[in-house]
């Protein structure tokens, strides 16, 4: 490209040299037809495209002056639906192909283990209480068999703190979800999902964000409750995710632990 002299710009009705035109385009100073024309030129004129790219790279450090801003969760919810991540509907009980991206890849769940311990301990006591209440006068043999089916899960919020504790008495087909420190989301309810070992998500039901709620476990899901499965909560419209397809992002998640009772 030639050297550019200031005089060249005295007449603003003249098109400037390509280097400057590329800078104008990179800044986005044009509107309407001229912008469209230059956009087309990018495809047909590699030298011009290179010049624009150089400007972009040189201006890019200015982006550091723009602060990042937290993005509301609903943007991802509609985005993922729009690009087909949710294309396969989640039936409430039948296993369907899960979206691994939504359920499995949330790296922020890491580091939860340390904070989970306390809640897990609370949970253990709660399950014990629940278990004794539900099986008065059982013989020890039966009780220990039932204890094999007592499970717990502490569901961590994205910040790693426990958000919910779930207690399961699988032999009784019962699950209780206890919110620990949840601020109610207006117009949304927590929906609990079982993430089975094969990566599928199954709706267990709609719970309450303020109080503990006990629900029956759908019979078809009972065999899937084990230590290789996990539970997750998404925020959904009252009544649950429409068509069994989760629309909210995962707000809490945790693995299932089988309770080992001392003899």
């Amino acid at each position, binding site marked *: 490209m030639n050297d*550019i*002299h*200031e005089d*060249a*710009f*005295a007449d*603003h*009705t003249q098109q*400037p*040299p390509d*280097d*400057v035109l590329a*800078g*104008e385009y990179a*800044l*986005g*100073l*044009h*509107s*309407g037809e001229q*912008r469209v024309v230059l956009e087309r030129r990018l495809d047909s004129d590699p030298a011009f495209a290179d010049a624009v*790219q150089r400007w*972009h*790279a*040189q*201006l*890019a*450090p*200015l*982006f*550091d*002056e*723009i*602060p*990042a*801003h*937290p*993005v*509301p969760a*609903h*943007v*991802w919810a*509609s*985005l*993922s639906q*729009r*690009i087909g*991540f949710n294309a396969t509907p989640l039936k409430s009980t039948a296993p369907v192909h899960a*979206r*691994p*991206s*939504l359920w*499995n*890849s*949330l*790296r*922020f769940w890491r580091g939860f283990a340390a904070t989970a311990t306390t809640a897990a301990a609370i949970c253990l006591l709660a399950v014990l209480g629940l278990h004794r209440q539900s099986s008065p006068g059982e013989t020890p043999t039966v009780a220990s068999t039932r204890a094999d089916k007592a499970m717990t899960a502490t569901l961590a919020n994205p910040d790693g703190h426990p958000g919910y504790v779930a207690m399961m008495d699988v032999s009784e087909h019962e699950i209780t979800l206890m919110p620990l420190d949840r601020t109610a989301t207006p117009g949304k309810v927590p929906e609990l999902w079982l993430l089975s070992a094969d990566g599928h998500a199954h709706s267990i039901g709609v719970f309450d964000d303020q109080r503990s709620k006990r629900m029956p476990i759908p019979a078809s899901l009972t065999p899937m409750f084990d230590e290789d499965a996990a539970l997750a909560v998404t925020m959904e419209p009252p009544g649950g995710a429409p068509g069994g397809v989760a629309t909210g992002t995962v707000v809490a998640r945790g693995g299932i632990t089988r309770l080992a009772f001392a003899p």
Partner: protein
Amino acid sequence: MSTTAETDHDEAGHLLVATAAGDREAFETLYRRTSPKLFGICLRLIPQRSEAEDVLQEIYVLVWNKASQFDPARARGTVWLAQVARHRAIDHLRARPGLRRLSLDEAPPLPSPQASPAEVTETRGTRQRIAHCIDQLEPSRGQLIRTAFFEGCTYEELAERSQTPLGTVKSWIRRSLAKLKVCLER
């Protein structure tokens, strides 16, 4: 997310390449890591929050569909994303002149040239190159360049805001771009 960290590890670039191959997990990670920054860019250009959210969503739809156009040899992932975001936000502004008009009516006059922020980032050294070159311009012209970049203004809007004839603004900016070019490549 930094747009200019000059490290060998371009995480956003790697995630974009994986996204181009259809890796949904990579795309979601990319979204989680980069969307706050891109949302900041959208909000800077589009004052209406709900519109900015819509545009952010469109940007990531574009990224999902067009990630194959990202060439790691030509740009860092974050730079490419920021560029796509700014371009898309400007398209949105251009398609709805009323949106910008509204905000211009409420907008304060151009900030004084001295008010250029010097936010310290890990990439300060890199940032200073373009900032340094803009600072070499006459203050009012440097401010025009900054306003064009940060607010996505057209020539017409800059003329209106600086209450300067359109032709004069064009000449100023073109001269400024020519000077910047020399300074940047020095």
